[in-house]
């Protein structure tokens, strides 16, 4: 019979790596299992920005003395690696107009503080795992977990080599498309919101004005984003769609050869390896627990719970497992503190909203020049934020204020906006199902 661990953690992303670190500090007999061999390498696309000095899941994260500090939850994590300051989020229209959330010009002159720090997520994950290992946590890499089952006194997970691992608890931090969530039947109750396919190319020698922001380019057949990378002059361009048959390459090429973007890339050279992702987006799970398996981070969310949105539940789940072991309640009651934490800070304030998301695509309604016109109506820079929910409400507020002007000047655009808003959600979701690939159970 193989060893019975207190807790097995699947996945060495930010969520699992944090859970492993906490399990080690708390003196648990723990193991972390990861399918990659090189934990530091990030192949799945991620812009790697951490929002700082603003509210984020009721936390107010700050960075000082080589540590990210989570004052509300009361913990810190070490990070001593490269960083780049980010001042916000800009929407860029087809002709190059900007709707600015955050002032990159004032920011780069030091007149405005950053709202985000771009980091090396692989290094962050590896630092956490190294700390866990130093506290006696077993680290198994090159190991894919393919199955999970509950036995009377433990949870058994199996890898692709046929090995079994036994734990009193399992923390599933295996990310979006979580196989553990799927195997445990969580997906039966979730709403399928689409298959999101995204890929990015990295370039050097790019010249973009006001570049220390995340740039979302509208008016293309797919969602095109631009973001700086850690080295100076390096950027990545990504193309994403909910239609798995969309030709992302062709649309990215069209974007890169259209002005003003072509000028930004005229001396650019593609470098490094491409990154990508394909995710089945399903509504967040309300109670991330079943058969002594706790879900953390993207495994229980949709995707993009974010780096800190995975770290915080990883921390909370490992602490709850510790309490359960101390009190001897090896069950749902034992880890109640984690389930309450998830409900209070993630599910109630944000999860519910995301579960009812799914609106018609702007590109199906507005022409390129309509988008140019709309952005020109709000030339003022909005207060900087990297908080997804704040970005959404800033956009909503700014454009609600100009609705009378749109009605007056461009009733045709107003009509399109109204048609978009009243498009039934069931039809949006049906389209997403049609164009996606719902492998969920």
């Amino acid at each position: 019979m193989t060893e019975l661990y207190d807790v097995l953690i699947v996945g060495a992303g930010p969520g699992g790596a944090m859970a492993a670190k906490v399990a080690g500090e708390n003196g648990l007999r723990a193991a972390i299992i990861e399918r990659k061999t090189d934990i530091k390498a990030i192949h799945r696309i991620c812009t790697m920005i951490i929002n700082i000095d603003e509210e984020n899941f009721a936390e107010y994260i700050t960075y000082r003395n080589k540590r990210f500090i989570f004052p509300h939850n009361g913990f810190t994590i070490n990070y001593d690696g490269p960083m780049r300051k980010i001042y916000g989020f800009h929407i860029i229209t087809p002709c190059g107009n900007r709707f600015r959330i955050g002032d990159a010009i004032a920011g780069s002159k030091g007149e405005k503080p950053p709202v985000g720090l771009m980091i090396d997520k692989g290094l962050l994950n590896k630092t956490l795992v190294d700390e866990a290992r130093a506290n006696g946590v077993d680290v198994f890499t090159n190991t894919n977990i393919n199955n999970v089952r509950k036995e009377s006194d433990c949870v058994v997970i199996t890898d692709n080599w046929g090995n079994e691992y036994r734990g009193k608890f399992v923390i599933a931090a295996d990310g979006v498309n979580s196989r553990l969530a799927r195997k445990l039947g969580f997906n039966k109750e979730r709403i399928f919101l689409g298959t999101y396919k995204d890929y990015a190319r990295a370039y050097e020698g790019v010249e973009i004005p006001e570049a220390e922001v995340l740039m979302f380019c509208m008016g293309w057949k797919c969602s095109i984003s631009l973001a700086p990378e850690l080295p100076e002059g390096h950027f990545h361009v990504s193309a994403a769609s909910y239609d798995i048959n969309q030709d992302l390459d062709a649309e990215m090429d069209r974007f890169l050869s259209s002005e003003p973007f072509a000028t930004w890339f005229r001396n650019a050279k593609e470098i490094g390896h491409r990154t990508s992702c394909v995710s089945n987006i399903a509504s967040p799970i309300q109670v991330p627990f079943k058969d002594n398996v706790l879900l953390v981070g993207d495994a229980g969310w949709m995707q993009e719970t974010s780096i800190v949105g995975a770290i915080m539940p990883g921390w909370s789940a490992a602490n709850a497992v510790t309490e359960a072991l101390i009190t001897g309640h090896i069950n749902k009651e034992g880890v109640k503190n984690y389930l309450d934490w998830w409900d209070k800070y993630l599910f109630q304030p944000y999860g519910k909203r995301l579960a009812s998301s799914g609106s018609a695509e702007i590109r199906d309604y507005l022409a390129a020049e309509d988008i140019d016109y709309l952005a020109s109506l709000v030339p003022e820079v909005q207060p900087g934020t990297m908080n997804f929910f704040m970005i959404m409400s800033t956009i909503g507020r700014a454009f609600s204020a100009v609705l009378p002007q749109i009605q007056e000047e461009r009733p045709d655009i107003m009509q399109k906006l109204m048609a978009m808003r009243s498009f039934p959600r069931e039809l949006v979701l049906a389209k997403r199902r049609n164009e996606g690939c719902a492998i969920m159970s």
Partner: protein
Amino acid sequence: MVEIDKEKCSGCCGCVDHCPVAAINVIDDEVVVDQDICMECLICTKVCPLGAPHEVAQA
């Protein structure tokens, strides 16, 4: 049979997650199809953002 073009593959593991029968694994940081398990449903060829999985004639 279905194989993954190493040159094109980013290693994002999207196909690993979507394969209905867990026929795709990451071994030594390389994404590979286990031909004994693969049922040639071609889902991986559809979901891959980089067009890396493809059908090849049986050897």
